[in-house]
């Protein structure tokens, strides 16, 4: 029997495949198409305390092997989420990662308190990295002290796994991983999207109403893998890697680089039934490589020189 389960601190999930926040609605939208209990987890759309309408459309633009989004964190707010969505997620036996956003530390703390009392929440993913909203989020994610403060504040009010989600729009992502670990994070997830833009040259206007948006999809995978690799050297806590995963080989690439689990976002838009394809691919790899436990592969990148360097580079 192949064991695909992975452990994130106190939380063990049946396989490393988690639906990425903002790419899977509140999970319930997919409940008829996908058996949510077969996923490693569902990270729901970023939630604020209050409802938000988000940005005016157009909100996405396709780009080479990727897409930009500027949704602006439209959402129903934490209270309606608990009332209207959480019960079905519970019933479907989904492992729920709630992605929370605030404009102040108090908001994150308040959200953490409320969700800790709600039944059926398995982990808190702190979105301190959304590039698409003016106030909050990213302002914490781009400052080491900001990151440390948010994480430790939330840490103090919940026993749920606390997982800050890091932005790639920084010089040294590993230092943010360290700050998170020191502040008591149980794991980190990365990457959120890259701040980017696209212009309609005929009208000379931005293609997004919000002017800038976040780049996701296969295009960013090589950068995201490098960042996961850097964080793996920097911290001991589990890493949830993401950025452009579309095939089982991509999952394995992130895990070999140092990820304990992964999230899949954009590729789920292209293929909502991707989950079985990925699981089959992982099982096939394990069989071919005679592995019994998938988690063994995490951080096994072999960097020993292939042949003695013949000349100084």
């Amino acid at each position: 029997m192949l064991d695909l389960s992975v452990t994130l601190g106190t939380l063990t999930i049946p396989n490393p495949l988690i639906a990425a926040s903002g790419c899977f609605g509140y999970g319930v939208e997919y409940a008829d198409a996908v058996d949510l209990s077969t996923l490693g987890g569902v990270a729901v759309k970023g939630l604020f305390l209050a409802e938000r309408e988000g940005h005016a459309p157009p909100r996405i633009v396709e780009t080479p092997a990727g897409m930009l989004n500027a949704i602006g964190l439209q959402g129903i707010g934490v209270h309606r989420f608990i009332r209207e969505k959480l019960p079905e997620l519970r019933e479907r036996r989904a492992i729920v990662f709630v992605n929370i956003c605030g404009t102040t530390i108090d908001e994150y703390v308040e959200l953490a308190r409320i969700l800790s009392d709600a039944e059926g929440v398995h982990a808190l993913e702190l979105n301190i990295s959304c590039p698409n909203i003016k106030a909050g989020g990213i302002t914490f994610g781009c400052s080491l002290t900001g990151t440390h403060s948010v994480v430790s504040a939330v840490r103090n009010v919940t026993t749920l796994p606390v997982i800050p989600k890091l932005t790639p729009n920084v010089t040294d992502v590993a230092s943010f991983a360290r700050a998170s670990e020191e502040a008591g994070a149980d794991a980190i997830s990365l990457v959120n999207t890259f701040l980017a833009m696209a212009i309609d040259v005929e009208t000379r206007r931005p293609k997004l109403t919000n002017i800038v948006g976040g780049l996701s999809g296969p295009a960013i995978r090589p950068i995201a893998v490098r960042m996961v690799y850097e964080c793996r050297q920097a911290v001991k806590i589990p890493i949830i890697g993401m950025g452009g995963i579309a095939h089982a080989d991509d999952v394995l690439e992130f895990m070999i680089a140092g990820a304990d689990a992964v999230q899949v976002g954009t590729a789920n838009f292209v293929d909502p039934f991707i989950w079985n394809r990925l699981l089959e691919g992982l099982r096939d790899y394990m069989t071919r490589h005679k592995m019994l436990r998938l988690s063994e592969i995490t951080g096994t990148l072999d960097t020993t020189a292939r042949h003695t360097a013949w000349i100084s580079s």
Partner: protein
Amino acid sequence: MPVDVEAAVLANTRLSDDYSVLALAAPAIASAARPGQFVMLKTSRGMDPLLRRPFSIFEVLRDEGGAPTGITVFNKRIGKGTSLLYDVEPGTHLQCLGPLGRPFDAADPPAHAWMVAGGVGLAPFVTLAEALLARGTQATLFYGARRAEDLHRVEIFEQLGVRVFCATEDGSRGAHGRVTVPLQQELAQLGPSSDVRISVCGPTPMMRAVANLASTHGRPCEVSLEQVMGCGLGGCYSCVVLARDETGAPHHTRSCIEGPVFDATRIIWDALAH
């Protein structure tokens, strides 16, 4: 529940330099399809382009026994993906996800159903016309385009027994001007007792004009909107339109699951990108 099938291209009939009708083998989708629903098509095998494209289900294909075997798509080339579909050859396979979205609700007699189509906006009306006639509901199509050559597949509706009014901006066929010209005339002649339901699909300004006409004449109107769609399943929040809820409060509403068909009175037109 939508299914995703690797659909064989049975035929790709070019109607003009920019229009083609793509026939796809997809029994599961065909048999579940309801009027005005759509599919998400992958226009290429690889990542260029990356995302799927939304297309109305144009026709439901059936075998001699009448069993659904596939669908057609009424494709207008306007960019990368639609150009790839225009060029696709039979034998190719395309990932096809559907059926998706909130359908039209086909009126029952004695109501009359008026369908108003602009250009490629004709796409969702074949399935609606069939549903109407199956119910014995009288159906009328108002179909507008730039020139006579841009009016395609009118015969499908005529054969179904739909009353058809055409309009062309250059007057080369039917009424001279926008599709609203014949529509307005017919609306004006309606008796107060008659129960007419309007459905419209086409360019945003045209849908807006029709929605206004409908409301001034006090006729219910459904619109089928075209928003950019990342997923088609409610996962990405890319496809929102600003629509009023029961209380009249405007909210960004996902057109892939609460639409693409909306009651026209819900839509805040000024907020729709043109």
